């Protein structure tokens, strides 16, 4: 029973980690708390819903929804934040602009599509499951785990193993100096927006698959978890977001399984407060120390 709960927690945590990675990347590199981030999660889920309803197979719908979400993220970042960045506005200004924008987007979407919960077409994934050692894992869960592992691996390789990643890390640390090294920071910012948005979109598709419930405000409840994960993991810290995401998923599932499913969010946020009391920069954070 415990092993099964841990497995389910790991699965949920993998999607949290995937979602939070894009958020922490956006924050770490672009230095903006972009609250529209949750919208790309909703967008990814809806795009995959429509594509599969139109008959597209999942292996096409997932990447297509992720890429389209990335493009929406790039467009919205450019639209909402270019002016603020140019004017050197402080973080509060971008926070308020993106808060206003995301509320407008959710409300607009609800007005257009209604608040109903939608379900993916039945039979999208074969309903089979693997059973071994008393553990049961469905094909959908295997797909979720594989997609998360692949995307996280790709992101880590991009950031740590390529010159492009080197340029992104340089820009995250000192944008002005990076530009003086010939790094085209504006273009790179667009690329980072795209990658982040695509990760959020992919997360939306996978959570949609996991719970089979898609609705306009699904990105909002995810954003609360995204905040917990990136703050606990250390703002802008990719490895930290990965660990904190897995941890949060496992804690939520264990709380729901052994205490009460009504308490899982209370436990998650109590964890946030507890971590910040003892480690103000998060479990793996160096950002605050670096700023000081």
């Amino acid at each position, binding site marked *: 029973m415990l092993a099964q709960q841990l497995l389910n927690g790991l699965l949920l945590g993998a999607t949290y980690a995937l979602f939070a990675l894009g958020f922490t990347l956006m924050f770490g590199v672009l230095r903006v708390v972009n609250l529209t981030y949750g919208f790309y999660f909703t967008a990814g889920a809806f795009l995959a819903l429509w594509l599969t309803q139109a008959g597209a197979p999942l292996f096409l719908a997932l990447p297509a929804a992720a890429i389209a979400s990335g493009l929406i993220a790039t467009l919205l970042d450019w639209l909402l934040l270019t002016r603020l960045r140019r004017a050197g506005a402080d973080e509060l200004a971008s926070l308020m602009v993106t808060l206003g924008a995301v509320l407008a987007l959710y409300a607009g979407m609800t007005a257009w599509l209604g608040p109903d919960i939608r379900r993916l077409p039945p039979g999208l994934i074969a309903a089979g499951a693997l059973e071994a050692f008393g553990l049961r894992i469905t094909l959908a869960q295997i797909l979720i785990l594989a997609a998360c592992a692949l995307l996280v691996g790709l992101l880590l390789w991009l950031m740590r193993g390529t010159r492009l990643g080197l340029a992104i*890390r340089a820009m995250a*640390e*000192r944008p*002005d100096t*990076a530009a003086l*090294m010939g790094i085209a920071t504006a273009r790179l910012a667009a690329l980072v927006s795209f990658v982040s948005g695509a990760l959020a979109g992919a997360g939306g598709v996978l959570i949609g698959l996991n719970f089979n419930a898609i609705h306009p405000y699904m990105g909002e409840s995810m954003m609360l978890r995204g905040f917990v994960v990136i703050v606990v993991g250390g703002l802008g810290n990719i490895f930290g977001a990965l660990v904190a995401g897995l941890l949060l998923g496992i804690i939520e599932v264990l709380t729901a399984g052994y205490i009460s499913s009504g308490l899982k969010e209370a436990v998650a946020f109590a964890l946030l407060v507890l971590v910040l009391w003892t480690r103000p920069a998060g479990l793996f954070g160096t950002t605050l120390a670096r700023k000081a």
Partner: protein
Amino acid sequence: MLLQTSALSRHFAGLVAVDRVDLAIPQGGIHAVIGPNGAGKTTLFNLISGLATPTAGQISFAGQDITLLPADRRAQAGMARTFQNIRVFATMSVLDNALTGLHARLSASLPAIIARLPGFRRAERDAIARAQAALALVGLQDRAYTQAGALAYGDQRRLEIARAMAGGPRLLLLDEPAAGMNPAERAALATLIRAIAAQGTTVLLVEHDMPFVMGLSDSVTVLNFGRRIFAGPPGAARQDPGVIEAYIGHKAAVRLAGQAP
């Protein structure tokens, strides 16, 4: 002329930091911009490297008008700089710092990276070799895998020079490279700057330390209150009454002139 500014000005809300400065730096050699603190030297450097935009005037580099070009495009055109207050990428390794300096020289498209094409791999090996050569130039070759933030102050300054030199720039801008150094470190720095110039990179440095500059430079431009008050060989700068006055004040200059034989 490799670098030329004409009537270059920068105003900050009523304050004129750089006031109609004409600067002409030929290809080759070591050139200095000097002046008392607050004379506008660093602002001039920021205008040249693209960190600040001029209020008026023009900048040309290698025959191209770069007045409106963003900083990254200027770097790609062959301009590199260091900072008065150190700005290494502290969380990255020394080698990675040097590799960022090569960014301007390398064009790697995302598909080429993902496909790991042979041409890309060769370019990558080449890049690491060049970064290591730049580290060897400043004597940091044995520290390649140290985290840059863990280096001593003087080593971080040298790393900035290596990072700037990695891309093989035509013009190297050094912003107060001798600041905070002891006499032995200054002598080593002067040797390094001469070696860089001997490789064919034109050096333009900003300093307020006159003796350091005098022994090193082929030409000197003196700024005071944002204006150019002298341009010429260093020997003549030392004799120039305007320069003496700017450095030691009007009264002292009059007294000195009175004592002259």
